[in-house]
């Protein structure tokens, strides 16, 4: 079975055999850099697509499904487009900081990859203060955000960045406390030690109530730290248009976009490591057979499975909850997650319980729709053109029916032209001389300007001879506006006999 476990040692042995230790280290560094960049690219594509699909299924629709099989290449197209798009720098922006900011945010994400154990013995740097390293480096991303907000010279950006600063600094505390719980339980700051300590049970099960509370705290705090809804105040689309990255476009915006998802991946990976044992398979007490089967699943699969479960949880939050207000955000942190205000315990518990119940109710509802794909009501338009259920009465455009002899019933009385409130219809008349020598008024052209038409139906009602009617066509898209001016009577057509 394929497993990542032995690869790192093999590679290192081979390199040391071929080169001197310094050279080997340099080559390893290059390999690691290449791997992490490609990991970032792949993760970005996968996570963005996952988010859009999860959102779609929660929202009873299909989501991207046109580009590639099942919409697989949607994010590839998006990325390519963003790379090729013009990268604007506002005139009055601080150009150096403006250009630097997205890279700072990305670099923080890259640094955080170092201590994560992707599989058994598959770790870039098993630093002995791993948890401390993560806590300290993860708070650096706020510098990039503040930089972006300040350098953009945009008030929305500045507000977004300031919010983000307040938010990350506060929530760092409860994330730190949650992580400390596990450090205390394990007795070590090293990631590999923490994972090894969960050999006979993950902390979320083994650590009892403190670990469960720590997990809840952790997941709330990291949702806030990654600026995700319900804590997406730094972007807050309905309030600050796009928050700190309002002025960014093209590739630099893509980096911010990517960094958001990379950060989610990283915090979820750390969460999986701390509370769910990282790559450690699920072991239950002394069920030898069961444990044995679990060991057969590669450790990387365990790790990714747990991480993606947590990522799904965070996405589920996003598509269920409204956003908090900025003062409520800080209240939540300082009064509930860190209960250091003078508050009665009873009041605290009731507040938390009612709040959590209402949130869980909402999540149950969205979860129901996510799991029941029969609730999806999307009609796939260009494919269903043949079966599209359209009302006959739908007012799409005015047409003039002609019979088999190319005859219509329009007398040219201009009732429609008079009834029309905005000059959509223009009747051009001519005088025809009948064989008896009598002059008779007839239409030369009934000019219909679809570009003006408001489908008010007044012309149809006004027409005394039912010469025109509404047709339910709606596919009128054109590249040229003049195409929308039509002559309704067909060339060579004439009025039917007996219509006066």
């Amino acid at each position, binding site marked *: 079975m394929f497993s990542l476990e032995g690869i790192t040692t093999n590679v290192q042995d081979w390199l040391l055999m071929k080169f001197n230790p310094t050279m080997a280290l340099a080559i390893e560094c290059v390999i690691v850099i290449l791997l992490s960049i490609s990991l970032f690219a792949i993760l970005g594509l996968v996570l963005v697509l996952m988010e859009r699909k999860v959102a779609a299924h929660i929202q009873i629709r299909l989501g991207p499904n046109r580009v590639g099989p099942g919409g697989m290449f949607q994010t590839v197209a998006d990325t390519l487009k963003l790379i090729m798009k013009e990268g604007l720098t506002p005139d009055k922006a601080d150009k150096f900081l403006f250009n630097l900011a997205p890279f700072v945010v990305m670099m923080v994400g890259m640094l955080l990859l170092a201590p994560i154990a992707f599989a058994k013995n598959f770790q870039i740097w098993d630093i002995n203060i791993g948890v401390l390293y993560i806590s300290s480096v993860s708070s650096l991303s706020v510098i990039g955000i503040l930089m972006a907000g300040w350098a953009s010279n945009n008030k929305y950006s500045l507000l977004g960045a300031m919010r983000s600063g307040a938010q990350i600094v506060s929530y760092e505390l409860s994330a730190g406390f949650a992580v400390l719980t596990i450090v205390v339980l394990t007795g070590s700051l090293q990631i590999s030690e923490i994972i090894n300590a969960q050999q006979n049970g993950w902390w979320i099960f083994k650590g009892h109530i403190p670990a469960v509370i720590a997990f809840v705290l952790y997941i709330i705090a990291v949702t806030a730290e990654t600026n995700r809804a319900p804590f997406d105040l730094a972007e807050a689309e*309905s309030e600050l248009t796009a928050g700190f990255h309002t002025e960014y476009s093209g590739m630099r915006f893509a980096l911010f976009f990517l960094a958001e998802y990379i950060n989610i991946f990283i915090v979820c990976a750390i969460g999986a490591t701390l509370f769910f044992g990282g790559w450690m398979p699920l072991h239950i007490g002394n069920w030898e057979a069961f444990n044995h089967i679990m060991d057969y699943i590669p450790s990387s699969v365990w790790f990714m499975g747990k991480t993606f479960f947590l990522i799904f949880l965070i996405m589920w939050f996003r598509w269920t909850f409204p956003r908090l207000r900025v003062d409520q955000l800080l209240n939540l942190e300082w009064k509930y997650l860190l209960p250091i205000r003078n508050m009665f315990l009873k009041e605290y518990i009731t507040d938390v319980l009612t709040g959590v119940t209402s949130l869980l109710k909402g999540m149950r509802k969205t979860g129901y729709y996510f799991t029941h794909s029969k609730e999806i009501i999307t009609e796939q338009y260009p494919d269903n053109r043949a079966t599209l259920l359209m009302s006959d009465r739908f007012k799409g455009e005015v047409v003039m029916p002609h019979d088999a002899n190319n005859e219509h019933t329009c007398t040219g009385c201009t009732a429609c032209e008079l009834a029309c409130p905005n000059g959509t219809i223009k009747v051009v008349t001519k005088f025809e001389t009948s064989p008896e020598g009598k002059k008779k008024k007839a239409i030369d052209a009934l000019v219909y300007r679809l570009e003006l038409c408001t489908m008010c139906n007044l012309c149809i009602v006004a027409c005394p001879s039912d010469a025109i009617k509404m047709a339910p066509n709606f596919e009128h898209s054109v590249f040229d506006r003049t195409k929308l001016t039509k002559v309704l009577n067909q060339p060579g057509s004439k009025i039917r006999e007996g219509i006066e």
Partner: protein
Amino acid sequence: MYNQTEIIKDTSELGADGELVINMGPQHPATHGVLHLVVTLNGETIKKIEPHLGYIHRSIEKMCESLTYRQFIYVTSRMDYLSSHINNLGCALLVEKGMQIEVPDRAKYVRVILSELTRIASHELWLGAMAMDLGAFTPFFYAFREREMITDIMEDTCGARLTMNYIVPGGLMYDIHPDFQKKVKAFITQFKSKVTEYEDLVTNNVIFQSRTKGVGILSAEDAISYGKEMNQSIRIIEQLIDNIPEGDFVGKTKNVLKLPKGEFYTRVETARGEFGVYVVSEGGTTPHRIKFRSPGFSNLSVLNHISVGSKIGDLMASMGTLDLVIPDIDR
């Protein structure tokens, strides 16, 4: 590296105590169109709001002066487009009042049902948009699922989904669709079963509650009254839908409508408040002067009053509850 005076060049934008003046709109996702708010901020706290209007001023009132009494109704659909049917009704009522046209019972029943359906559709949209303003995207999709049922009914009967232009002075433009009653009943059943969903997701949600409670005196009440209004609309429709009388759908009217000389006023309750039509007639085929009393304009005027002292996030909540339709304000 950077020069501070260069970045904040225009110091006049900064108020006395380092206040920040930001322009919200005309292109801003929360202004539901092209409202322009000049918001003076102190940190995150709002000190003053100044709405700027006119970004969608289409001179409808002036335009109506050159349209006949049959024609001018259709323009009102484009004002408060979410309750276009009710706007049309208001104008038709005015013409009927002025000319003493008798409207058949059947037309009256259908008018009321369609108006109430429009009201529900409008509130469904409000629910979705409000939740979206507060940062929750999903309720919008659930609300629109029910709204689509209404637009289907509208399309079947009136031939358009949003700007119906189905009401004419004297009655209706044509008769209702044969499936009308069946579809309305199906909608009522569906709607009733889904109301709890909105409650779970929106009104009972702790974040939603804390975002709306105490935000402006009006908004909490509004939020409740919308819910009640939808239920009331459903009750009205239920009472009427089985009892649509047979008969004509349009009363006898002259071909050319002429309002007698004088002043006329009618009002109807749209989804947002009272909509009034005031016409001065000189006895001709077109109004001499027309004035619309649009609910959105009055609602907007309280915005500064209820928002001062609250946060930017609250402004979105207040604007959401006011349910502004900008063309209705600007006309």
